[in-house]
């Protein structure tokens, strides 16, 4: 088990990254809190060693993406209706007034992860393939399709 100091530092260092991934996948704040707790609890209990900070960050991203996917697949998520959802109560601290963000967030799950990892975090297709457990060629295909979808939706703005 990692020390309290190590864990608190990791929360400060990676909270923004985890928050961004949560925002892409989840609709309400309480789910985000659950994912935060789950990800950093795993970090606290993780006994393996990280090569460097980059390796540690990649681990956090992978665990967060998986935690979001697991949560969205869970029986609890599929069967419980939240009051916020019913009454459209805004609980997010962020109200993203951006077509680009909304379009990225509305992409199918498989596309939004690669878009975020490649265009924001700057990971290569090869690195993404390791993180999400897919072949490198598949990652290229996903990126290409995601770009096409966004171009269609956002009126042909170029990525490059």
């Amino acid at each position, binding site marked *: *088990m990692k020390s*309290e100091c190590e*864990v*608190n530092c990791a*929360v*400060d260092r990676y*909270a*923004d990254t*985890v*928050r*961004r991934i949560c*925002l892409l996948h989840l609709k309400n704040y309480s789910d*985000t*809190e659950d994912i*935060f*707790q789950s990800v*950093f*609890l795993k970090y*606290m209990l993780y006994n393996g060693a990280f090569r460097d900070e980059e390796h540690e960050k990649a681990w956090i991203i992978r665990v967060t993406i998986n935690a979001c996917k697991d949560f969205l697949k869970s029986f609890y998520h599929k069967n419980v209706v939240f009051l916020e959802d019913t009454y459209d109560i805004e609980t997010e*601290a*962020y109200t*993203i007034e*951006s077509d*680009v*963000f909304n379009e*990225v967030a509305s992409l199918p799950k498989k596309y939004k992860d690669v*878009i*975020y990892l490649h*265009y*924001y975090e700057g990971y290569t297709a090869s690195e993404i393939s390791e993180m999400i457990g897919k072949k490198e060629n598949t990652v290229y295909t996903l990126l290409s399709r995601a770009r096409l979808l*966004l*171009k269609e939706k*956002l009126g042909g*703005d*170029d*990525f*490059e």
Partner: protein
Amino acid sequence: MMILNKIQEIFDGIKAEDSLKQNTKYFLQKERAKREKSLSRVYKYAAAFAVLIIIVSGAGGYSVLNKTVSYISIDINPSVELALNRFDNVVKASAYNDDGNKVLKNLDLKGKSYTEAIDDLLGSQEMALYFKENNRIDFTVVSDRQNEIIEGIQSCGGYAQHNGYCHGADGDLAAQAHKHGLSTGKYRAYMELSEYDENVTAEDCKNMTMKQIHDMIEEHSEYRGTQRAHHDYGMNRHNNGEGHHRRR
């Protein structure tokens, strides 16, 4: 603005709320405390279990080391009995007459292997007094591994050097012997003699040498003019392997 720039700008603006960070840290702190508490409970149980195992195995080991599973009765006139544990080590050496007490008085045989104990016993100064009279020495073994122990006795230097005889006996004979205050070997000889002489008692034999008892058996045997073999009382007879045959 290019989409790439917009993506970077938007995501750059997304920050985790301080309350989210604080709640997460608080949650992790509670989880840590819970796990450390349960871990210390596990250690406590593990320690208690380890102590229990040590006590049980210690008690078990002690009982295995001290449990008598075999007897070797050694009789000349001194009657001595060695109680052996599962590892053939002496757990107790008992004297069954005054001469036996004298022999054992200055010997510490406990914990020694039976062959070592026999060598010590037969090599002792007190025992030397009894060998001078051309006595015979009888070894009577009560054990599940009778033959193995008898072979061990026959390999002892003292056995080959003196007039040694080996016999096997069963637990019932040993129990009867102890009931009469005799060593198994002497009681066995008494039973043999009582076949010829109904008047002889266990008490009579207690202070007789084995040679005297066997001389009497021989006399009776010759008197009856019979060549019948002696009975073995719940036992096998083993002559020593050095040409010392049992004399009748």
